[in-house]
């Protein structure tokens, strides 16, 4: 595999007694889109949330194993999660813009990290919105509330917001599943664009979407990875029977 953006080694996640993710070791290529597919409750979202330590916010969650970015194990208690989350952005299923203007939503992250210069912020806002294919639609109303945008626009705003802190990896948890088909297609286009600069890991329930946007696919089942390979291979000629059963709709 070419450059690895992030890799996990024997990653386990427990919620209290229940083990949600079992011994997962995966390498994620940089500047590619990796899709995580599998039935509900298979642990794919939990796995995704571990990668930027969002599971720390859930009381009772315990994560063991290693998550490597370069030569740094970010699952170490000594890791500064604030710096880590700058490097790994995240987008959720439901768009969650802040109750502020479009401009402030984007400028929010950079401000957290100490950028005060107005010109610099303006530039970041324009760049981020442009990359998220939202600049043309919003440039004349940057001071309007972000909540005045449509659902699809809000989701692209959230993507722009995570880009604004210049991460290298973006995690997406079903980013298009709450959107109508047209907005969904736009988000997919955007993902295809973004992979030129960012490594993207996306959880999706929509198998056509996984086939369309990703280069690699991991099939999760009961907290384990059944198969991880090139997307084209997974969807045409999977090695495991369980994968074949799932993608051809025999269960799940």
């Amino acid at each position, binding site marked *: 595999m070419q450059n690895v953006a992030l890799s996990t080694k024997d990653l386990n996640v427990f919620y209290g007694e229940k083990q949600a993710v079992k011994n997962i070791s995966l390498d994620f290529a940089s500047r590619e889109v990796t899709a995580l597919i599998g039935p509900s409750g298979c642990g794919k979202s939990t796995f995704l949330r571990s990668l*930027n330590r*969002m599971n720390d*916010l859930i009381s009772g969650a315990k994560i063991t194993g290693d998550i490597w970015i370069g030569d740094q194990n970010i699952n170490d208690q000594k890791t500064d999660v*604030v*710096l*880590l*989350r*700058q490097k790994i*952005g*995240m987008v*959720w299923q*439901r768009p*969650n*813009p*802040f*109750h*502020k203007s479009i401009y402030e939503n984007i400028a*929010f*992250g950079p*401000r*957290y*990290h100490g950028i005060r210069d107005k010109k610099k912020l303006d530039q970041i806002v324009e760049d981020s919105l442009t990359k998220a294919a939202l600049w043309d639609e919003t440039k004349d109303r940057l001071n309007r*509330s972000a*909540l005045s945008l449509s659902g699809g626009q809000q989701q692209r705003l*959230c993507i722009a*917001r*995570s880009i604004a*802190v210049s991460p290298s990896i973006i995690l997406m948890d079903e980013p298009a599943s709450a959107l109508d088909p047209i907005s969904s297609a736009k988000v997919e286009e955007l993902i295809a664009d973004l992979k030129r600069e960012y490594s993207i890991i996306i959880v999706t329930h929509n198998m056509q979407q996984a086939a369309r946007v990703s280069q690699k696919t991991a099939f999760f089942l009961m907290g384990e990875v059944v198969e991880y390979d090139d997307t084209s291979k997974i969807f045409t000629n999977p090695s495991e029977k369980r994968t074949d059963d799932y993608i051809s709709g025999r269960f799940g």
Partner: protein
Amino acid sequence: MIQSGEKPKVKKHIIEEWTGKIVTSLCIVLLVVTIFSMVYFVATKGLSSFFKDGINLGEVLGGSKWKPEGEPPMFGALPFIIGSFSTSILAALIAAPLGICAALLMVEILPKFGRKYLQPAIELLAGIPSVVYGFVGLSVIVPLYRDLFPGQGLGIAAGASVLSIMILPTITSIATDALAALPAGLKEGSYALGATRWQTLYRTVLPTTMPSLLTGVVLGMARAFGEALAVQMVIGNAPHIPNSLFESTSTLTSVITLSMGNTVMGSMQNNVLWTLALILMMMTFVFVFIVRWLERRAQR
């Protein structure tokens, strides 16, 4: 033709529907009638001091001399208006940061401990009768202020301190509800951008919930504005504008409760007290309108 021979009966569920409608309508009518007659009564009584007794509105609102028994009698209510506003605003200024911080602690920082111990404790605070607050204020706060500051310890500072404890539960419980009702995902969104907990609370949680938090503060102020007994016990009840926060003064409520028994119904002195009650009532309406306005902003 199954029912031939039987009288057509009104079905049971229709009777139930009608009974429900009538009972609820009656309750509403009763409520509305009570409210309107109260407003009407206070207004006619309160306004009669202007129309019947010929007192000048400007004198009541702007005069600083209160001598209802004097020759000629003087009805300047400015000291009471100032007393009411300064005690309730000061009380809100003390209680708002405390209440909002307590709510933050209960919801965001120590949710388990907060829900189990702090919330019941604060609800308990709301159930203590105001006479007890006043008594405690008189025996603890007033002597404390007397020792620390020049003066007798009675006054706006003592009143505001007692009131701030009384309105703390209102502010805290409304703030707790507002914080708990924060749309899911906003906090995560902030954390995922690399914000610390402090930044998330300060820059995301507080601004988003601000209208609801302010609703609690205004409701607390309204309660402080209307509270009579506890304030009357610690404020000193001198009818003039004080020079410091530790000097005896009065509020609209305290002067009404103190003077009510000493006046004859229908007399000029009595009517002026009704005027003060009218001012109190109007102020409460203003508070309610502010709350309404804030709630509408919160829904955006």
